[in-house]
């Protein structure tokens, strides 16, 4: 058996490795590993609890605002101010995070995923006068094609006109995602790593000027979502219909929900614009942070690091036998769960969220597809596009609900001791922060991030993680160009740099390692 190495995976955030054993052209086994340890849980110990608000954002430069939100809610709880955050504070937090969603999803579809579906080289034959496309045409003629070549070859199915049009949208999307950052910076100060959220609320209040600035920017993004992004997802779906049936994954879904509409301290009762919920074996229930358990059987951590995040420790053990990842294996109520836009959409749809249902049904009918098609590579892309359209509309409503001159923050001094958690959904899925404060310092801080759920390694019961399961049984047409695996992995929008390894039963290919 030969192992083909696709390492590292590009167009994702972070460092991850995926191995797949291919036999007779079909994936028989797969393993996903995080290949980078940074140790947030360790270096946060002993620090001032407020510092977690800023430092945890540095987990991810693509979606720092969701760490801002999880940290803020975690600290609100530990500092005893959960229900005291003023309405302006709650709404501005929603606006900041929602703008991050717009940025992250647009970035993901166009800059990260599109190059798997769109052939930029078609622009060489462009005959029009669009300045962006003419620049790409000159670029192609120069022959220096990095960073768009090398790439996988042999499965670009859009026609020339579509490829040219989507390349134009790729450049337009880069401007749109920057515009989403500009909208975020109105209250967040700067982006990435905004400074907007703090325990007790946010750092600044609304003014007419800020409200107008946000609305103008977000409306432009909403128009882009409706007239460009969603039609592009549909165009890709029509050209690659087989991707509506592969990459299904684990079919259990967890969403903490996000975008608070009230401040009920009980998360299972709090009203959120993207609702809280979990679907396990087809049954819908409420998602309760107490039911999370982290397994470390195959992770490079000491065995006694397993446990509930509120009690767990992080002791790295890079030599551990049988381990293959820096990620732990979080499980919910002993189930392997997918998190992210698809999970949120499944939960909202099943919960009877009318606005979500209307958008999903409209898109499915445009494609002539059934609801089951959502559980796929294309379904995840579609779920993101719908979220952008819905959030662009919702941000305008939140902005119009702001009240200039009214409070946006309450004081939140650090107590001698306390515990908290903040569980919210970010662009990539369910995110939890847990804190324990002792002598006014951080005694313990644990994070369970979205990609840890999706890219988790096997647990002590031998059950593979969601991405590992999604790769199982996949037919790989050409092991030199395993588009299928890259497209499936990217559909989860992993927040880690990946490396995909393919084991082929009969060939030992370029860059390959070992015959098993």
């Amino acid at each position, binding site marked *: 058996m030969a192992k083909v190495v696709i390492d590292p995976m*590009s167009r994702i955030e972070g460092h991850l490795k995926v191995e797949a054993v291919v036999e007779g052209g079909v994936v028989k086994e797969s393993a996903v590993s995080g290949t*980078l*340890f940074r140790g947030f849980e360790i270096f946060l110990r002993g620090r*001032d609890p407020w510092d977690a608000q800023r430092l945890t954002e540095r987990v991810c430069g693509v979606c720092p605002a969701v760490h801002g939100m999880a940290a803020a809610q975690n600290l609100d709880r530990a500092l005893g101010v959960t229900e005291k955050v003023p309405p302006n504070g709650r709404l501005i937090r929603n606006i900041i995070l929602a703008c991050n969603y717009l940025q992250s999803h647009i970035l993901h579809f166009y800059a990260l995923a599109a190059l798997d579906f769109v052939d930029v080289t078609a622009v060489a034959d462009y005959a029009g006068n669009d300045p962006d496309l003419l620049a790409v045409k000159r670029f192609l003629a120069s022959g220096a094609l990095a960073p768009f070549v090398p790439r996988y070859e042999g499965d670009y199915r859009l026609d020339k006109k579509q490829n040219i049009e989507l390349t134009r949208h790729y450049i337009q999307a880069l401007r749109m995602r*920057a515009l989403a950052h500009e909208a975020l910076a109105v209250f967040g100060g700067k982006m990435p790593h905004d400074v907007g959220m703090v325990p007790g609320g946010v750092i600044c209040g609304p003014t007419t000027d800020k409200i107008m600035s946000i609305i103008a920017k977000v409306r432009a993004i909403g128009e882009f979502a409706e007239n460009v992004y969603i039609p592009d997802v549909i165009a890709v779906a029509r050209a690659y219909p087989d991707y509506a049936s592969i990459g299904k994954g684990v079919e259990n879904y967890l969403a903490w929900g996000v975008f608070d509409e009230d401040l009920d301290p009980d998360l299972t009762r709090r009203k959120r614009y993207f609702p809280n919920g979990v679907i396990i074996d087809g049954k819908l229930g409420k998602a309760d942070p107490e039911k999370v358990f982290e397994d470390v059987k195959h992770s490079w951590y000491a065995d006694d690091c397993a446990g509930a995040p509120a009690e767990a420790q992080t002791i790295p053990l890079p030599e551990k036998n049988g381990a293959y990842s820096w990620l732990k294996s979080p499980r919910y109520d002993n189930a392997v769960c997918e998190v992210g836009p698809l999970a949120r959409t499944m939960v909202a749809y099943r919960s009877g969220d009318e606005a979500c249902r209307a958008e999903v049904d409209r898109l499915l009918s445009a494609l002539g597809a059934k609801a089951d098609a959502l559980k796929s590579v294309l379904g995840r892309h579609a779920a993101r596009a719908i979220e952008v359209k819905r959030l662009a509309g919702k941000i305008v409503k939140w902005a119009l609900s702001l009240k200039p001159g009214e409070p946006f923050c309450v004081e939140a001094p650090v107590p001698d001791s306390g515990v908290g958690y903040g569980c919210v959904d970010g662009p990539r899925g369910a995110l939890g922060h847990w804190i324990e404060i002792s002598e006014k310092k951080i005694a313990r801080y644990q994070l369970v991030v979205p990609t840890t759920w999706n890219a988790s390694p096997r647990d002590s019961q031998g059950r593979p993680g969601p991405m590992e399961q999604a790769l199982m049984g996949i037919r790989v047409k050409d092991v030199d160009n395993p588009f299928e695996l890259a497209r499936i992995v990217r559909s989860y929008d992993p927040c880690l740099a990946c490396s995909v390894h393919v084991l082929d039963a009969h060939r030992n290919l370029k860059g390959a390692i070992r015959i098993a």
Partner: protein
Amino acid sequence: MASQVKQIPVVWYQAASCSGDSVALLNTTNPNVRQVLVDEIVPGVHINLLFQMTIMAGQGAPIIEILQTTAVAKKGEYLLVVEGTIPTAANGMMGTSGEKNGRPCPMAETVADLGRNAMATIAAGTCASFGGVFAAEPNPSGSLGVRDFFCSRGIQTPVINVPGCPMHPDWLVGTIAHILLFGLHRPDELDDAGRPLEFYGVQIHENCPRRPFFDAGKFAKKIGDEGCLYQLGCKGPVSYADCPYRGFNNHTNWCIQAGSPCHGCTEPDFPDKLSPLYQKITEERLARFVLA
């Protein structure tokens, strides 16, 4: 692009990072991102961005090959941009990317190979410049900034630090443009921390729009108050960068303008010696800062 356009090979390598500096680069406005990626960054010069993990089409062995061949075939011709720290604990095994001969490539070895043969290295962001958040005490991954790492390996390639968490895209693009237009920075164009003075020569506190409050003794006591943010932990008095004039995200805003104390994210001492971030700089802390 005309055929007489000069091609400058650039390798952008992400070590232990959050990709925040790559994302910040995508926010560049003048030149815009299309001009940077496919056009001429300055008239007559195109950046041939051979490697950039966040946007490049390829993956796997072919792109690892790019790293290996560039270091050899384009020795002394390419510009290396490093984002993130270099993890050195556990023989570099706490941060690997790609495989060579069936073994994971430690980021440390890749950065050493690329760094040794580069024309110059730009450290993009505070982690690559000084260690930053990922090297925060007790630094469990043994993370180093590029200068310290090069020093530990005896690598002589010049390093220009472009810190910020993340850096402003103008600082990075402007630093590259400076090299292309005027050559590598002379020592008198950099400060003691290896930062280009044209971007980092400004002390934030002295140029802060809230400075009149400080002079008048009017201090914010809690978030949202009018006044100087010194007592809320503002590190403007020990931080250098042109944020007060430049603004982030197409000049939309910056930390102090939004109402947040400056955290000193462009400084070599960020975050450890500037913590707690929301507590004022005491004389004791300031002394520690100055003596460091």
